[in-house]
């Protein structure tokens, strides 16, 4: 079929054609019919994710199993990621570190639930995760870094 470039303003013409061919245009839209609010669309994934967190907390308490959700791998509508973070809330502990850009570890309002955000060197979000664990691994000092630090300290003291 040859390519036909339709002017998007002609989209309304399709309605007229549909009516003429007696296919019947759908009744005019009523945005309030299903309770949707203009500008807010709900994929339904936020409550699902919160329930996933709830189940993960139950397993964490039962047998210490940790869980992580890659928030950026979930299809969310406009504003839903913000609503998810709002629902998780902020807890007592906030930590940041700088390596290949800034990273934030924020305990949520529900202890054991952590929101970890990695930024790249340009300050854009490179990854966002919700972890369910007693302590995120990122907060612990890795043995390799401890060894490197010890060598530096030893050198400082010897100088």
């Amino acid at each position, binding site marked *: 079929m040859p390519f036909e470039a339709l002017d998007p303003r002609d989209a*309304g013409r399709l309605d007229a054609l549909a009516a003429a061919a007696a296919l019947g245009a759908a009744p005019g*839209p009523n945005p309030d019919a299903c309770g949707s609010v203009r500008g807010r669309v709900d994929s339904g994934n936020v409550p699902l994710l919160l329930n996933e967190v709830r189940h993960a907390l139950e397993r964490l308490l039962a047998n210490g199993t940790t869980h992580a959700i890659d928030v950026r*791998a979930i299809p969310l509508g406009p504003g839903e990621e913000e609503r998810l973070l709002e629902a998780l809330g902020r807890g007592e502990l906030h930590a940041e570190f700088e390596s290949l850009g800034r990273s934030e570890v924020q305990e949520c309002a529900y202890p054991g639930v952590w929101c970890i955000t990695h930024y790249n060197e340009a300050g854009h979000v*490179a990854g966002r995760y919700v972890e369910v664990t007693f302590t995120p691994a990122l907060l612990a000092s890795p043995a390799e870094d401890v060894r490197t630090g010890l060598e530096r300290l030893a050198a400082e003291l010897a100088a």
Partner: protein
Amino acid sequence: MLIDPKATVADMLRARGISRRGFMKFCATTASLMALAPSMTPKVAQALEKARRTSVIWLPFQECTGCKEALTRAGGPTLENLIFDAISLDYSETLMAAAGHQAEEAMKNAMRDNWGNYLLLVDGSLPVQVPEYSCIGGVSNLDLLKEVAAGAKAVVAVGTCSAFGGLPAANPNPTGARPISDVIKDKPIVNVSGCPPMPIAITSVLVHYLTFGTLPELDHLNRPKSFFGQTIHDRCYRRPFYERGQFAETFDDEGAKAGWCLYKVGCKGPTTYNGCATYKWNLGASWPVESGHGCLGCSEPNFWDWQGFYRPLSTTQWGGYAQIGTAAAAGAAVGAVAALAARRKQRPVGQDVQEETK
């Protein structure tokens, strides 16, 4: 700083002063990039401890440079991260500082030093019918591709042009443009289609090869399943409106303003395999449907010619609404005539019995 060709990715990051914690951050975002679960981060770390930087040669053919523009907007890792830490981009006319003979020498050296192991990335289609339409330094794209592909481990066709022919191959295809897979038959080919492809899809293939030494699992069109395994429709946040039959009828009506399904204004989401609905564009800022425009189907073959961008999927196979209406009316008329003819041949009930008993 001269880079040790035997240095692993972990070595490169350490040399830049990145701590182990920073390396684990790199591994976490790398796992995301490959659409792996966060729990795979330690395995990615293990692999990157041993992974050496991969030599990459990028050849541009009949293309608009949009695919490279997309890659320069990659966020995690950024293109800079990739180039400095993960890959050795040994030839890319758009991005490299060298030009002319110096650039060609860089490519020849990379090919010689990494024969059999470099990745060849290609964007743009091939003017097979008239090779002279696209040449670099007097050498046709066709000849250059064959020469460089001979020593490649694999070929990554970046963008719909190199994967399927794209815009140059659209009707009437004056240059006889063809995809890479029509010419290269003896190397594995990964098609990262899209016009342009999502940056994360491009970097994902590179990182997968870097991390595991293999190509990702591919679909029937040789596209990575991690990004092309589901349709836009499968993951679209407007799907609930589709299910409820709530559609925007025009781009500025109340349904459009309320964010309803864009099927009726031509969205090709149901037949398009891509990851835009999940990973979005511009570092997660938005994507076409979220911005109010239907999916064009740009990661599918022949999307330029296949159907009008603003015709609903249900009408495009059979023509416009008027044609459907005419066809329906014609079909009804034929059916009516056939029924009348059959009716005339029927005998009244009981007539058969009366005749038999005479």
